[in-house]
């Protein structure tokens, strides 16, 4: 045995170690510097290297087969390096686990490193590791545990989180600060994968905020900061603790985090903002002094390495980082405070001035950050930023693309009627000069965005705007925004009648001169718009025949554009024929027919079926006319008079295209009441579905011009299946999606935003008899989403019973008027303000769809049912993410809470009286609650999102119970107490969750009554301004209960540490959960 070992050691000496591997790889390729220049040699060296590596992998496989752990360890270390070069090493997973399980720290470390690089939460092998990791976590050696935690943090899976949550929690109270720190951070990862852990762990986490070790403190702050991104209101009660930390700590990193956290909290609690201003300004002063100091000191040092420079820079940034965050938060605070009252504009002004200093700084980083912060102010105080237009325009010339993009963003918010033309001119100039198609595209997009925002609020001259659009096309940005320009052209031509004459002539020129390049440039889309415009507004054309000829010119174009060409050729034809009629010009009309028939042959042969079909029908139409004409030509007795039949045909044709198109709101269809007996869910034909089942188009076949071909294709396909779902199915699907999403850390940020949608949906489904109809709304393709809820709202308000057509006309008139009135009238006040608020929403959607809407929203807000109003206001904040309405569902509670908190803070003096009120609101929300609760058991992760993350059992109990209390309101007090005891026990036990559920089921909801009564008392006081009082009240209330139960419960409290924690845990929930409780 011993011999074997020695032999193993001896052999090992001659194995390659990591260094050898690296050296070998490097020897097997050429000099890197030459790589780019000498392509061939590069490829050769690449293959040499690949060959060498595959050789090494073979060797490693050999080594892994040996018994000696050191050999394996060496092999795994090499694998880790090879992984970095892009080779899959998951095949060695089992060996990695072997190495991880070695008792030696050296091997363990290598093993965990390899694991952290190649394992991921879905790795099946992770099942094998649970016990090993647990052993490591409980190891005597703190570094064993530390390494295990580091590794685990990279690959922790939901199963591991569930199984190891307790061990990690124990580590949080370890005697070693190093482990406490790591364990605290680790808990966040656990929460992400296993949200149930949050509630029991929260008291401990909170305790760590006051840990004697600054590292642990900082870690706890970090974790809470991350948690607060999801649901800040839960952490509002912690504000006093953070406040204390902020004023006492000197750890920059932690201060930054705290300040960031406050930035997130202030919007929820305006008074917090007021309190913050002073210490923040103090901090700013302190930092400025510190930073000057340090900068000077560093400048005096003379070091000649490359590090010196960066050291100075670093000293500079380390101070600046905090300073910047302070300013940022002050801005956030000021914004949240001043949104109501105007007298804070002075301080905003101050902030803007400070930012100006940052932007003028020579340090590019500060410049960038200054612009970033400026854009935050811009959202609420555009006026004050506008004063610095010069500065921002100057930034457009910066050589740094990041800065230019930021400046562009800012410019968008700064335009006014006066400066629009100037800014656009600057931007166009930039576009000509700018290199890089991505940046040019961005510029183009911004130009259009700037001009079209808020229904062209700032455009005073639409001929100018048309020209700009044409110029944009001619700039050939290689742009992907062809469709956007096309939409703009259509939109302006339709909505601004006065510009039509100008437009058709411009478009004729465009059609004439536009050269379709073979590149995969989407700019040809504009032809689609141009062709449509000249056809539709043919009456405005000075020389319709010329235009007709241009359209008939054979060109290589995509099918959908050719289709439009054909369609508009008919329109032009009808127009020309009518003029011929008026002139009694028989030969002219005959010539026209022959000419068009001849040219249409080209389209008849098109490979696109749509074009073929249209060209065919066009030919048939014209041939019909032609026939009617030939009849008379044969009959030579009556020269030069057009037969009545032909006249009729021409008139009918003209009639086809008569009438003006007006803009239709995307949701207009919904205002049409569903006729009796029409069941859209029924197949009209047996599947596969006929093409136009769900098409919203109406009488005119021109309508399809408004809907691009691709959209039409996808729409029915998406819609069809979704409409067949029953509400239960929908619900189930949503829950499934929810689970998936809350498991996915990427959804962190979107969560609060989507809450609005949830609230809205829930609101509509519970309050409205048409609920089902609206449930389907969220299955409508993405493009339409931003307006969904508004549409619903409008409909609901549409109880005003205006007919659909009437509404549409009104909208058109309104739209046209805004277009016109912009020239003369200067409408200010409510309207413009509101549209300002809506800006963000506009930025996302192509505004041409959204235009007529905002006015409606504004007018109707007050009448709207609860759910809808919420989402609307959310929409204005720009937080509403239209991409996925479903993700919102779970957070419905959230938003309600959010709102109620806001309400409570406003009216908090009345809040005391709210017991009766709250019961009323309880009932109101009952149905919602009920729905979402039902889903809860399956939707494990939804706990965090639902806004019940109130961390301890009692709180949950209350929340859950109050929901169930709607079912079962009269249970005795004693039952409640009984349950509370149970809860105390179960909190400690590992199977807490199960118990909770079973207890919940059996004894239902007495706790809630108790808890909520407590809460009602506490409610008004639980405001940051009087945190102490609130805490005291809460603790008193709880302690009273606590004492009762403690006596008989002693046996369950074996662990001392747990006991104390438990107490604190017990007082905590009320304090923390109060806000969320207010709903009930």
């Amino acid at each position, binding site marked *: 045995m011993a011999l074997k070992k020695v032999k193993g050691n001896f052999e090992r000496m001659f194995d390659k170690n990591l260094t050898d591997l690296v050296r070998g790889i490097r020897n097997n390729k050429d000099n890197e510097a030459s790589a780019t220049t000498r392509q061939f040699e590069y490829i050769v060296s690449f293959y040499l290297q690949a060959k060498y590596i595959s050789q090494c992998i073979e060797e490693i496989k050999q080594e892994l087969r040996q018994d000696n752990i050191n050999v394996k360890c060496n092999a795994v270390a090499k694998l880790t390096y090879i992984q970095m070069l892009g080779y899959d090493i998951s095949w060695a997973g089992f060996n990695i686990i072997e190495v991880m399980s070695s008792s030696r720290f050296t091997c363990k470390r290598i093993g965990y490193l390899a694991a952290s690089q190649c394992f991921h939460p879905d790795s099946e092998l992770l099942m094998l590791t649970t016990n090993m990791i647990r052993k490591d976590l409980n190891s005597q050696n703190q570094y064993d545990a530390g390494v295990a935690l580091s590794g685990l943090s990279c690959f922790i899976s939901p199963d591991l989180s569930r199984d190891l949550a307790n061990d990690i929690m124990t580590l949080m109270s370890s005697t070693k600060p190093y482990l406490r720190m790591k364990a605290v*951070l680790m808990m966040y990862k656990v929460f992400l994968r296993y949200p149930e852990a949050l509630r029991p762990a929260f008291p401990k986490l909170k305790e760590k905020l006051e840990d004697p070790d600054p590292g642990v403190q900082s870690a706890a702050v970090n974790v809470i900061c991350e948690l607060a991104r999801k649901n800040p209101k839960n952490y509002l009660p912690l504000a006093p603790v953070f406040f204390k930390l902020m004023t006492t700590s000197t750890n920059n990193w932690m201060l930054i985090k705290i300040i960031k956290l406050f930035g997130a909290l202030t919007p929820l609690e305006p008074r917090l903002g007021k309190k913050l201003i002073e210490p923040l300004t103090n901090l700013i002063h302190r930092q400025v002094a510190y930073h000057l100091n340090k900068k000077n000191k560093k400048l005096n040092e003379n070091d000649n390495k490359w590090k010196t420079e960066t050291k100075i820079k670093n000293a500079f*940034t380390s101070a600046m980082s905090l300073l910047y965050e302070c300013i940022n938060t002050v801005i956030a605070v000021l914004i949240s405070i001043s949104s109501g009252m105007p007298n804070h504009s002075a301080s905003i002004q101050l902030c803007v001035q400070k930012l100006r200093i940052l932007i003028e700084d020579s340090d590019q*980083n500060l410049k960038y950050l200054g612009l970033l912060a400026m854009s935050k102010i811009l959202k609420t105080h555009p006026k004050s930023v506008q004063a610095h237009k010069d500065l921002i325009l100057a930034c457009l010339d910066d050589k740094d693309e990041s800065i230019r993009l930021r400046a562009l963003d800012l410019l968008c918010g700064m335009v006014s009627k006066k400066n629009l033309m100037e800014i656009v001119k600057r931007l166009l100039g930039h576009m000509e000069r700018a290199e890089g198609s991505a940046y040019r595209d961005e510029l183009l997009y911004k130009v259009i965005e700037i001009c079209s925002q808020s229904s062209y609020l700032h455009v005073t001259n639409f001929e100018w705007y048309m020209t700009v659009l044409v110029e944009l096309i001619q700039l050939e940005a290689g742009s992907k925004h062809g469709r956007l320009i096309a939409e703009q052209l259509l939109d302006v031509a339709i909505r601004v009648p006065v510009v039509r004459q100008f437009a058709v002539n411009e478009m004729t020129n465009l059609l004439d001169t536009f050269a379709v390049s073979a590149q995969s440039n989407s700019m040809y889309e504009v032809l689609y718009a141009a062709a449509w415009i000249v056809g539709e507004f043919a009456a405005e054309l000075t020389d319709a025949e010329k235009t007709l000829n241009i359209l008939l010119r054979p060109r290589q174009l995509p099918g959908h554009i050719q289709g439009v060409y054909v369609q508009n050729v008919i329109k032009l034809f009808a127009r020309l024929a009518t003029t011929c009629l008026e002139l009694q010009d028989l030969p002219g009309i005959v010539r026209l027919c022959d000419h068009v028939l001849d040219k249409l042959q080209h389209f008849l042969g098109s490979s696109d079926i749509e074009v073929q079909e249209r060209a065919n029908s066009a030919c048939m139409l014209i041939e019909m006319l032609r026939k009617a004409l030939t009849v008379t030509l044969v009959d030579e007795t009556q020269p030069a008079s057009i037969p009545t039949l032909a006249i009729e045909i021409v008139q009918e044709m003209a009639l086809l295209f008569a009438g003006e198109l007006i803009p239709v709101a995307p949701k207009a269809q919904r205002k049409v009441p569903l006729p009796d007996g029409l069941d859209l869910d029924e197949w009209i034909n047996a599947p596969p579905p006929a093409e136009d089942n769900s098409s919203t188009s109406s009488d005119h076949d021109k309508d399809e011009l408004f809907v691009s071909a691709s959209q039409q294709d996808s729409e029915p396909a998406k819609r069809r299946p979704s409409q067949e779902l029953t509400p239960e199915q929908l619900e189930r699907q949503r829950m499934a999606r929810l689970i998936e999403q809350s498991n996915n850390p990427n959804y962190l940020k979107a969560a609060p935003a989507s809450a609005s949608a949830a609230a809205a949906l829930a609101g509509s489904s519970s309050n409205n008899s048409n609920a089902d109809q609206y449930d389907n709304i969220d299955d409508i393709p993405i493009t339409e989403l931003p307006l969904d809820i508004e549409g619903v709202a409008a409909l609901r308000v549409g109880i005003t019973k205006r007919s659909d057509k009437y509404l549409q006309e009104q909208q058109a008139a309104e739209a046209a008027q805004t277009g016109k009135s912009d020239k003369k009238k200067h409408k200010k006040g409510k309207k413009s303000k509101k549209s300002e608020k809506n800006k963000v929403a506009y930025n996302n959607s192509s505004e041409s769809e959204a235009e007529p809407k905002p006015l409606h929203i504004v007018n109707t807000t007050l009448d709207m049912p609860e759910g809808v109003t919420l989402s609307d206001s959310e929409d204005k904040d720009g937080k509403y993410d239209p991409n996925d309405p479903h993700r919102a569902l779970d957070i419905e509670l959230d938003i309600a809470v959010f709102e109620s908190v806001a309400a409570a803070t406003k009216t908090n003096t009345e809040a005391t009286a709210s017991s009766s009120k709250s019961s009323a609101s309880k009932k109101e929300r009952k149905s919602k609650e009920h729905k979402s609760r039902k889903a809860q058991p399956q939707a494990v992760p939804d706990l965090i999102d639902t806004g019940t993350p109130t961390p301890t059992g009692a709180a949950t109990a209350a929340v859950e119970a109050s929901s169930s209390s709607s079912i079962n309101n009269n249970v005795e007090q004693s039952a409640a107490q009984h349950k509370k005891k149970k809860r105390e026990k179960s909190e400690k036990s590992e199977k807490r969750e199960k118990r909770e559920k079973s207890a919940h089921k059996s004894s239902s909801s007495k706790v809630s009554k108790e808890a909520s009564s407590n809460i009602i008392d506490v409610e008004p006081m639980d405001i940051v301004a009087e945190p102490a009082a609130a805490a005291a009240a809460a603790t008193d209330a709880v302690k009273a209960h606590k004492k009762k139960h403690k006596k008989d419960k002693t046996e369950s409290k074996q662990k001392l540490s747990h006991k104390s924690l438990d107490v604190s845990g017990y007082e905590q929930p009320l304090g923390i959960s109060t806000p969320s409780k207010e709903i009930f």
Partner: protein
Amino acid sequence: MIKAILVFNNHGKPRLSKFYQYFDESLQQQIIKETFQLVSKRDDNVCNFLEGGSLIGGSDYKLIYRHYATLYFVFCVDSSESELGILDLIQVFVETLDKCFENVCELDLIFHADAVHHILAELVMGGMVLQTNMNDIMARIEEQNKLVKQEAGISAAPARAVSAVKSMNIPQQIKDIKLPDLPQAIKDLKF
């Protein structure tokens, strides 16, 4: 949260890659490549923040990078991190490397990739910043290195001897003797 930490040299060769969110190996390489292309075309005197980069992207994410001599240190972070704070962190990381390797250079990172990982693990854990105080970080690293040395003890002595001989690397040194590059010299002769 930090989503990824990448270190690559002026030619885009990866020297360290740490992803705190799972991507498969080919995607990782693609991300490194794309990031390199984004970062390398920027001047030294422009700002250290970059938006975009489709792979790692998402509007919430930013690239924050620093360029030291031949190496780029790139952190991909979301909006909950402070931009300047991360710049500091990069500085701390580099200074720590400098202390550990005594005048760190690219070669150190190449040959001690594992050690760099261990150092990084003391700064950032699972995408969250663990420790920013350099003295604390150094203390932790030294303690761990001590532990490794203890374990190695006498049993590792022969191995060390061998590796010492190996690192003398005689064949390589012979190779390394600079002779004029013959083919190149011949090429140069032609006009």
